[in-house]
């Protein structure tokens, strides 16, 4: 399947999903209107609206494509991920935002038939380079999943697992300290300090998710990827996680996929809007939610579809 067929299919699919008049208009005119703003997108593809680059990026992704067998799930996505900030990725179901997130620590490697191409450069090193070890990459780019998935072990063991396999602690005292600090930073210490040897699965959903965050930060990553971390949680637990994300932002770059636009607005500094595998618009969160430039973005955030 060559790229022009893909493009046609995409257009057809877009038209089928949303018969809005402005939909099939190539946003090149709009891009011209957004004066001076840079774009990394390749020629002949859907042009991303807004600012995809940042100063001194941590992740620099250029022309990323993901295929699941024949299905072209991510199409020529280019975006930078900055340090010390939260990037929210929003979009309707099946738009590829989770797929893109999983590219960043090569979790797509585990899916049979998945193929990723394009450049994903972390601190000047392509993560698909032969010199880049995938274990090391995942220690550097931690991940929190949609459903809380603590290991069926004790709370202590859940947090100690990462440092243990990576050999981060020299002795038991150091390990205890890492567990303590991680749980404290995840805001879970006060709730679990008396029952560290209880199974992690005995906690409530929100606590489990914070345990997963504690487990992730215990290996001291640079980036934390979060794939709809609050979708299985109630509003109170969600608020706690959101506060936590805000705190963690000082130390880690965070990329969060969310279905809740309020959440994206609350926790992120930059927002990226995905639609059917295309990155439609990227920009400062405030700007995206107050003044979307692309018709699709506007339709989505005003709740017309999605």
């Amino acid at each position, binding site marked *: 399947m060559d790229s022009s067929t893909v493009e046609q299919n995409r257009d057809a699919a877009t038209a089928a999903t949303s018969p809005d008049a402005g939909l099939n208009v190539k946003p090149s005119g709009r891009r011209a209107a957004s004066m001076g703003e840079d774009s990394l997108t390749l020629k002949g593809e859907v042009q991303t609206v807004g600012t995809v680059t940042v100063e001194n990026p941590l992740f620099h992704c250029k022309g990323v494509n993901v295929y699941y067998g024949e299905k072209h799930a991510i199409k020529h996505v280019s975006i930078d991920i900055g340090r010390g900030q939260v990037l929210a990725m929003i979009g309707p179901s099946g738009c590829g935002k989770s797929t893109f997130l999983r590219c960043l*620590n090569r*979790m797509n490697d*585990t899916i*049979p038939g998945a193929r990723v191409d394009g450049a994903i450069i972390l601190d000047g090193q392509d993560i698909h380079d032969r010199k880049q070890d995938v*274990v*090391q*990459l*995942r*220690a550097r780019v*931690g*991940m929190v*999943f949609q*459903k809380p*998935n*603590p*290991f*069926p*072990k004790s709370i202590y063991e859940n947090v100690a*697992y*990462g440092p243990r*396999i*990576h050999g981060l602690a020299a002795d038991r005292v150091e390990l205890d300290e890492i567990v303590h600090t991680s749980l404290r930073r995840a805001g879970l210490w006060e709730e679990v300090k008396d029952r560290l040897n209880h*199974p992690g699965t005995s906690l409530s959903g929100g606590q489990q998710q914070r345990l*997963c965050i504690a*487990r*992730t930060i215990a*290996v001291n990553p640079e980036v934390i990827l979060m794939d709809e971390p609050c979708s299985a949680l109630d509003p109170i637990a969600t608020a706690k996680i959101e506060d936590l994300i805000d705190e963690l932002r000082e130390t880690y770059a965070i990329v969060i996929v969310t279905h809740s636009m309020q959440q994206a607005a609350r926790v992120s500094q930059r927002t990226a809007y995905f639609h059917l595998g295309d990155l439609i618009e990227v920009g400062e969160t405030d700007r995206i939610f107050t003044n979307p430039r692309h018709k699709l973005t506007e339709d989505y955030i005003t709740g017309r579809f999605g």
Partner: protein
Amino acid sequence: MSSPTPVARITPKETQARVAKSLRRRYWAERRFRFYGLAAVLLGIVFVVFLFGTIFFKGASSFRQSYIKVEVFYDPAIIAPNGGMPSAQDIANADYQAIIRTGLRKLFPQVEGRKDIRDLTRLVSGGAAFDLRDRVLHTAGLVGQTETQWLLASDDVDMLMKGHIERGTEAEPGPLNQNQVAWFDQLVKNDGLELRFNKTFFSHGDSREPEQAGVWGAVMGSLFTLALTLLLSFPIGVAAAIYLEEFAHKNRWTDLIEVNINNLAAVPSIVFGLLGLAVFIGFFGMPRSAPLVGALVLTLLTLPTIIIASRAALKGVPPSIREAALGMGASKIQMVTHHVLPLAMPGMLTGTIIGMARALGETAPLLMIGMVAFIVDVPKSVTDPATVLPVQVFLWSDSPERAFVERTSGAIIVLLGFLVVMNATAVVLRNKFERRW
């Protein structure tokens, strides 16, 4: 019309009436199904009770055996015919049959004549002489002493004692002639004949004489064979399952392997026996009748079961645990050994129990590799000739002596006991693994 159009053409009241009418039919269908299920379960229970009942009823008597009380005088003149202190050589070679004969004649002084004395001696098993020899060999200072010994009775006496054979008449004598029956009655009257716990059955190997035959040789043979089978098939099966499930790329070759593993599970076991005969004995020159070869054949037989069950157990581990481990930066083998394997272990053990239970009951392939041979000695290692419990059952069920009938059932009881102990151990192990999570 301003009111919304109803979906059905009937009124709500009519709807309720129809629902009520269909309810009876639906509940009746449910009751009928429950009845069928209950009937099936009851039928199964009846069969099991009948099977276990008959086996126990027939086999329980084999756990007791007739013994005859005899005053035994360890005559130095018989043990050391050349006079002087008897040497170990003398004790080993002495004529204990003569000692027993003397003891019996003391009980029945009226018996005269070579033929009658021979008939009298035949009340006692030929094995009794060996028991006495072992006793004198292992107990110092018995020579010259007199002691009361319970000697193993012959199988015919035992059968008459248990009421399994006819007493016979003068015209139509049974297995025992009329003199022997009279002596038997006298022994019973004087409390000189008793049913006691059948130690021989649980400590000896096979024998041509039923009263001297035991299951211990077969139990040890089964133990060696199964231990080795477990040792070989569990690690190989689990490793194969892990490789196929977690590491191998899914392609035409893995599909082919999967299909063939499923096929192997359905191959008649005797084919594995022939394979073992040709490969392990014919090509590699391993010893015949040995638990080693038996275990190799049974390993081939149980591997498909264990692999299939282990793969199912691995498939049952939620993918979220794998993602969590990989997301933490665990390598694939760390993911498997730290997280997936512990969760899959109970399922793998269940598959292993099923496989081992099948291996324990397997007879046909072992016939092919010579484990059906008549073996008296209790095996001491995996290369000693041996037989196993189901083959022992097969051998005894073929024997003409009446006393082997109850021993066949006795061996089945031991086999079932073996199975229960093995499964109970596995279930306890499995629960222990499950509790940890």
